[in-house]
């Protein structure tokens, strides 16, 4: 088995060889390693992208806005990802971000995952009909279990999820009540000495 460290080093070198700067190549190395750690096909997507990269043109986005459209030439997922990561502190204030026409959009995914960790918010991402929940670069949940080598997406939609609970107040009360069964009921004698301060904490 190829180690994750070897995946990082080799994909970094491959990215430099194909024409990216060392700094961007470092980002790609970390990302592909992360994808493989999460069980996503990082090496496969990168390989496929790099096969077409030298002979095709890709749009290199600079400033990212709410709606990003590149009708004729697909966006490069790596440049898009790098700029997304760099600009995320500004972008997190937007409700939703849309990209139209991205080549190999799975390669954008690990950038967004790292972005989720940077801003401390989960990110919900749609690649066409495939859904991904990116949780602070700790986990990626998806409804898509196969066909994850995606040459191009017409629509990639991304939204930042505010740090709200996924359960209701009643549901929390219910589980909290159960947890209380591990507590000891304090009688007066226990109240007096078990905390060390007596019955009052005033001087």
């Amino acid at each position, binding site marked *: *088995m*190829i*180690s*994750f*460290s*070897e995946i990082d080093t080799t994909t970094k*070198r491959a990215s430099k060889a194909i024409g990216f*700067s*060392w*700094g*961007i190549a*470092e*980002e790609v190395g*970390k990302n592909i390693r992360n994808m493989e750690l999460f069980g996503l096909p990082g090496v496969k997507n990168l390989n496929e992208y790099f096969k077409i990269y030298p002979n095709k043109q890709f749009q290199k986005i*600079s*400033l990212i806005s709410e709606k990003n459209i590149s009708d004729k030439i697909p966006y490069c997922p790596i440049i898009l990802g*790098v*700029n997304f*990561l*760099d*600009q*995320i*502190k*500004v972008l997190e204030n937007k409700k939703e971000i849309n990209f139209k026409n991205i080549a190999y959009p799975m390669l954008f995914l690990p950038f967004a995952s*790292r972005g989720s960790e*940077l801003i401390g918010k989960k990110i919900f991402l749609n690649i066409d009909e495939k859904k991904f929940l990116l949780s602070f670069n700790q986990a990626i949940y998806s409804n898509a279990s196969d066909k994850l080598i995606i040459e191009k997406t017409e629509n990639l939609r991304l939204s930042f999820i505010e740090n709200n609970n996924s359960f209701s107040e009643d549901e929390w009360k219910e589980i909290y009540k159960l947890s209380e069964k591990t507590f000891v009921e304090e009688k007066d004698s226990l109240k007096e000495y078990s905390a060390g301060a007596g019955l009052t904490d005033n001087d």
Partner: protein
Amino acid sequence: MKIELRDPNTIMKLSRLGSFHQSKLSFLRSFLNEFKDWEYKRDLFELDENGFGKAIYSFNKNNKIYSLLCFSNYIKDEDRSDRVIATKWDAAFVLHDGMPEKKDIERLYQNVPKQEIGRVSYKELSLSRANKSVRIFNHVVESLSVGKQPDKKKLSEVGYLYRTTAVYGSGKFGLADRFRLKNREEINGPFRLEMMLVYLVRQFTFDQVNHIAKLKNPNKAIELDKEICRNLGIGNSTGLGMAPFIINHPTLLNNWILARETALKKIREIQKVKSNDKDLFLNCLKRSLNNITTWNSDSEFQKNKINQLLSDLNKFINFIENEFDFNQEYVFNKIYLWIESNLKDECIEYIVSIMMEPYEQITNPLVKKMSSDEEKYFNIPADRTIFDLRGILEKNYKNIIKIDFNDKENNKFFWFVSKNKEEPRLADRYLEEGHELEQPLAIARDIKKLHERISNEKNSCTIANFLIENNDLRHIVRRAFIIEKFPYSEIQDNIIGSKLIPIDMLRLKLSFFGALKFDPRSDKWLRITMFQGAPLPYELKKFNDHWIYNSIN
């Protein structure tokens, strides 16, 4: 009294880093301390009359086992090479997580002797190979087989029976990735597994010579004297492969140096030095002189360094014995100030190391801080501004940004990875081809370029906006934000200039390993010894922590 940490602009110069010596913080010493209460065992020893075959050694505690598999085989004399490009070795080794099953042993037997072209798995932790010092090995076997101990003088000239030519870890060739192991406290020090491998290999070399001698002459053969064993280590040949590591792991480098600097600062801040601490310091200092006099090298560069070190040490001892009063406050601070003004780098750092000997209460907590999770500092804080970046560069790289890289002498070398062996190499960019494939290790040049590039940018411009047009400098922007938090993360020198002495970079790393007897074979590779003087495995439960100052003589 509060002492400041030493200035990174001075300490991180290569000439200073290349003068570092082993200390109580060194990894081989901290490894022995960590594993001293583990059970050592020789689990398998199946060698033929020539010493070829396999052996397994292990450390275990609380059902946790680390085992070393040794594979020894015949090679022709002409195939024996210390170069990393060699393809055959006298013995190959792998450290396995747990006790290997039969199928693991077979799998590893098929792969470990092949080294770089074999594959190991996530169950393996470190991989290495070694060659005999044939002259010494044969002499020892011959002597033992006729019932005599070998000539100590001959042994002291070399100091080991085998030398390793590479010790790999952390994901190389399929080895376990670091993240799989990072929560194991016992191996939470840098290179601890590599140290374990080398230490157990050392025991294998003793067992092997005893075994061959015994089978050669069963009636007369004797075992190698334990005292002689203790005074033999494992040699190591190290080339440029080590140099990029310290560039590519900036926060780790910082933590190593910071531990050393913090120890020195705390020792200088001791108001009243106890009499037995003073005695221990002086004892280690004097005993260490023996080690220096057995330090052989054909290198003129190293001979000069050794002579200068000896001369400075004698000057220092003379000062301590005749002019210095230990009955005063802040003794070690006064000693430090004297050595800084009167001695050269090599001896200053030598004495700094020995100052730590009495103070394990200072060094032990620091040992735990010498690892690093580089990943945590990988992201660039792109919401920061050019104003911030300029401030970082001008504060932390103030000498670097004065270098003129239009001067060919300052831009002479380029670092590359060889296609043949995937190993780092250094070449003259004006004489050799390949500089377009330069590795991103010319930190000083790229920092200078970054400083120039931002000179016309507005202070309020964010790093995110700057990078849109300047991603060619992304790798160096990342480093700048690392040094802001980790002041000892960067070598404050130009490692592509004509004055570069690459072995200074190797010395730095090897000193933290705990290596002794640096013996440069050129300006790009050197030999060292490890664990010379160290206790033997069965002695680990009770040993003198200052064993490193024992000498073979």
